[in-house]
């Protein structure tokens, strides 16, 4: 079951932040980002999820705190309306509390979002970048659903340690369940308790699209599974739930 509030946190806290990497690593994205400077605020309700997307020097920064003045302020009365904007399903008409005359900023954001969609779809970017962005989304989403999904929160409390996901000789992310609230972190863990290592970017992308028999690939040593397999079983439940919130087609949005 999808919790709309959790989904909006995923869009703002896991999907949008990939724009940062994209604007650094992808020339097309950087070019879009360079067309405007300013701050766009996304906010749901008075106390709901929010974040700022800051355009500066051809780069994008996503700030979860959303403090201070913004150039454009998009207020969504409900999480469902924000989610409709990102998923493209349903009606989403945010209330532009501020900056609705700054059309250029909105257009640049819209172009960049569409570009990101194509990159994640595999239409424009190399596999390596796509895998990296998808891994980042995965780690952040896992942390969010572990913290906030009503069904998974009790399960997350049963595990303790760090789960790392990485491409062999490539990008790595981890989710830290060690203390307090789970955190999705870009980069390797110092000493992961559970490790999933994919032989290639392509294999990881196929796994993320649910096109691979993971256990069979582990036996064929194309996926290395190591460490706390009990944690791995629970992490697997989280991974399945990531696919519910962001179905393979949706991941690409």
């Amino acid at each position, binding site marked *: 079951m999808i919790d709309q509030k959790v989904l909006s946190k995923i869009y703002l806290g896991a999907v949008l932040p990939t724009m940062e990497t994209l604007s650094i690593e992808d020339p097309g994205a950087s070019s879009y980002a360079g067309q405007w400077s300013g701050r766009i605020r996304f906010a749901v309700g008075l106390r709901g999820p929010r974040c700022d997307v800051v355009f500066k020097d051809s780069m994008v920064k996503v700030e979860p705190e959303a403090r201070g003045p913004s150039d454009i302020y998009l207020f969504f009365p409900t999480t469902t309306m924000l989610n409709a904007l990102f998923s493209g399903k349903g009606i989403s008409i945010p209330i532009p509390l501020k900056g609705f005359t700054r059309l250029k900023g909105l257009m640049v954001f819209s172009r960049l979002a569409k570009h990101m969609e194509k990159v994640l779809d595999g239409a424009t970017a190399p596999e390596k970048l796509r895998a990296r962005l998808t891994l980042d989304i995965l780690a952040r989403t896992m942390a969010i659903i572990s913290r906030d999904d009503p069904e998974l929160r009790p399960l997350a409390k049963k595990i303790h340690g760090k789960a790392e996901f990485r491409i062999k000789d490539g990008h790595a992310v981890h989710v830290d369940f060690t203390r307090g609230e789970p955190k999705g972190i870009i980069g390797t863990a110092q000493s992961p308790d*559970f490790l999933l290592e994919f032989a290639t970017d392509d294999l990881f992308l196929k796994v993320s699209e649910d096109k691979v*028999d993971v*256990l*069979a690939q582990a036996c*064929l040593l194309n996926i290395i599974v190591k460490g*706390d397999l009990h944690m791995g079983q629970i992490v697997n439940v989280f991974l399945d739930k990531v696919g519910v919130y962001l179905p393979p087609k949706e991941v690409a949005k």
Partner: protein
Amino acid sequence: MSYSFKKSHDLFARAARVMPQGIYGHFTPVITVPGSYPYFVAKAKGSHFWDVDGNEYIDYMCAYGPMILGYANDKIDDAYRKQAGLGSCCSIATKLSVELAERVTRTIDGADWVMFAKNGADATSMAIMLARGYKKRTKIVLAEEGYHGTQAWAGTNSVGITPSDRADIVMVPWGDLKAFREVITIHKDQIAGVMFTPYHHPVFAEQRLPDPSFWPEMRRICDENDIVLIIDDVRAGWRLDLKGSAHYFGIRPDMACFSKGMANGYAISMLVGAEKLRITASKGYMTGSFWMNAPEMAVALVCLNEMERINITNVVKELGETLLKGLADLASVHGLKISITGPSAIPFMKFANETNFLRSQLFCGECAKHGVFFHPHHNWFLCAAHTMEDIHKTLEVADGGFRMVKERFGG
């Protein structure tokens, strides 16, 4: 010399094309250490098996329990062949079903009747149905991390299970009488039965024996609240006490489930019950195409006789004690801290200073590559075919495994 597993891996590549996961369930190599373990067996005899690459192993998993007298035991296999020659799956029941039922009711403490099936899960499923039917109540109490099969109600799977499948299952920590009392209060007059293993043997965690007062108190609470007390003795059964593990721990359940070692590797399971549940059991329609197969029943009769003759529980207990003492001594020599829990015939070893099993995986992987088949995450099993020579050789290999752990982790 370290083993290689090329044929296993090549065969697995074929398997993965035609079977989901290639090898599924508890036989999946993923829960061992892929790359350090064989995937396919070629033959087995006594306490040893040989993989498809020709590597030989001293096996401490005993097929996850069923092999209690040892692989390819002549008495057992002769009994099977003899009966199979007279027919296997037939259109009506055989005399053997009566003889085996009589033998079981004489052997198992508190077994006034018996129903045969094929797998442990058949027996556990029948047990909860009968418990519900007996008191016309819906809820069943199970222990967290307990294992009773892969049925929807048992909570093992995450695929294809709906909330309604588990709506009437109430979970409590194993051995927690306070939690059990609390759920009885919360679900007053709704709990039909409680099913626990005789001691706690979760995967990925240390085993836990019951406090002396636990089972008598459970019995008392169940009696006071009209709750059917079920022991799932599928895994531990026959290795602690031929009369049942419940007898070993000093109580008499209302029903108990058995399988695994019952016919030394041939497929048979059973649910036994107390007199008070006989009429309820008589009203149920429970069956399977192969539940009345005669050869497995012939084997079970021989197996029970043989286990009794050799005093199986003493044999596996003493072998286990020797093995575990040897492992503890070796670990100490290497300056490593290990924890050994559970009965010596069904022990679980892990490294005491870790929760992520990385040392266990290295240790067991090294042992497997040198001919000793331990499991890093699951309890082990001793069988009557293990010998002192096996154990001495095992300890030689384990010495190398501990050395590797010391070198890699420092302690």
